């Protein structure tokens, strides 16, 4: 039988891992983005997400009660112990895919953090109240690119549609029931769609009609690609335990 603080801890860990893994994927773009300004933008978006992840991980460690710090949780857990959704973990090297994904993720985070900002848990409300303002900029950034590429040339339109089609199956996992959830994931579904669909329409794109991906990240089931991400993210800490700057 799990205790309330254990299930709340699992829920918080899921949100922390979403932000952490997304931040790591954003970091991949540094030096690889199509222009210097975009390098800065994606690095800054990743930094915001990392900041959110750090506070959430510390809180998850506190709820767990075994004395694990944010670093222990970020660097010393294996793949099956990560609780992030599949949307954020898959490798990407196409800028359109990254923007499609950021549009979906930031739309969801916007609604999630807006709801959490008024929840009775003071730590979650504090993180969310701060993060909701940052995520507004992420969503705006992704929306501008999706519109620019979607309503751009024939080539960019086609590729933006393909990117949206590729990411859309992973949206569904965000709205599935989670034990310990402070905000009912399903309740966010219509709100998130209301943020995404006008952007898709303005970009002259179609809302994809595709079957949802299997998912399972909240239960520790992941795609192969998370393992490679963790190997890179954790290798320094594991090779040199206790290393500091």
């Amino acid at each position, binding site marked *: 039988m799990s205790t309330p603080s254990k299930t709340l801890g699992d829920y918080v860990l899921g949100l922390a891992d979403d932000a952490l893994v997304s931040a790591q994927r954003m970091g991949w773009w540094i030096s690889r983005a199509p222009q210097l*300004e*975009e390098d*800065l*933008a994606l*690095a*800054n*978006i990743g*930094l*915001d*997400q*990392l*900041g*959110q992840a*750090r*506070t959430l991980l510390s809180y998850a460690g506190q709820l767990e009660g075994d004395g694990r710090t944010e670093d222990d949780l970020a660097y010393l857990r294996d793949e099956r112990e990560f609780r992030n959704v599949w949307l954020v973990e898959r490798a990407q090297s196409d800028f359109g895919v990254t923007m499609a994904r950021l549009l979906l993720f930031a739309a969801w985070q916007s609604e999630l953090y*807006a709801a959490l900002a008024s929840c009775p848990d*003071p*730590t979650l*409300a*504090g*993180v969310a*109240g*701060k*993060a*909701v*303002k*940052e995520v*507004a*900029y992420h*969503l*705006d*950034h992704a929306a*501008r690119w999706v519109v620019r590429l979607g309503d751009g040339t024939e080539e960019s339109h086609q590729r933006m549609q393909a990117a949206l089609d590729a990411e859309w199956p992973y949206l569904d996992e965000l709205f599935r029931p989670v034990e310990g959830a402070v905000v009912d994931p399903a309740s966010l579904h219509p709100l998130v769609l209301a943020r995404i669909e006008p952007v898709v329409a303005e970009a002259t794109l179609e809302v994809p009609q595709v079957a949802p991906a299997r998912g399972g990240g909240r239960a520790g089931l992941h795609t192969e690609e998370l393992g490679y991400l963790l190997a890179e993210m954790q290798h320094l800490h594991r090779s040199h335990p206790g290393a500091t700057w």
Partner: protein
Amino acid sequence: MSSAWKIVADLPDPELPVVTIADLGILRDVTEDDQGRVHVQITPTYSGCPAMETISEDLVEALLSAGYQHVDVEFVLSPAWTTDWMTEDAKQKLLAYGIAPPGAVGHGGAVALPLSVRCPQCGSLDTRESSRFGSTACKSLWVCRSCHEPFDHFKAL
């Protein structure tokens, strides 16, 4: 106001040394108990702001070298920092430093529209945003069409 507050309030921001942490609204509270223990509360501008640890180390060092024996620093997240807490004086200092200060935060939580940001170099309003994210998370990058100089703008948050 305690003397500990005065010491801490005068510390410059590590990334924007023309303004102090009190000017920026990062410093939330400083309390001293009768045994001389100091408790400082600071709030981050952005969740991932890498300057927070430097600020924390700076203020502990400043207080210790001023003779305080016990200093602890608490990071508070709520209420969330907003550029509206920045003093008018700080905005003028930023402007003189070449950074266009933030306008007032709009209501409703949407991203503030970048209507017209005045060039800190020549004062022209004929400017354009070249990137929503600049050298740090709190700034965006702009270019002046009149004097052709690029400049940072502290985003309203």
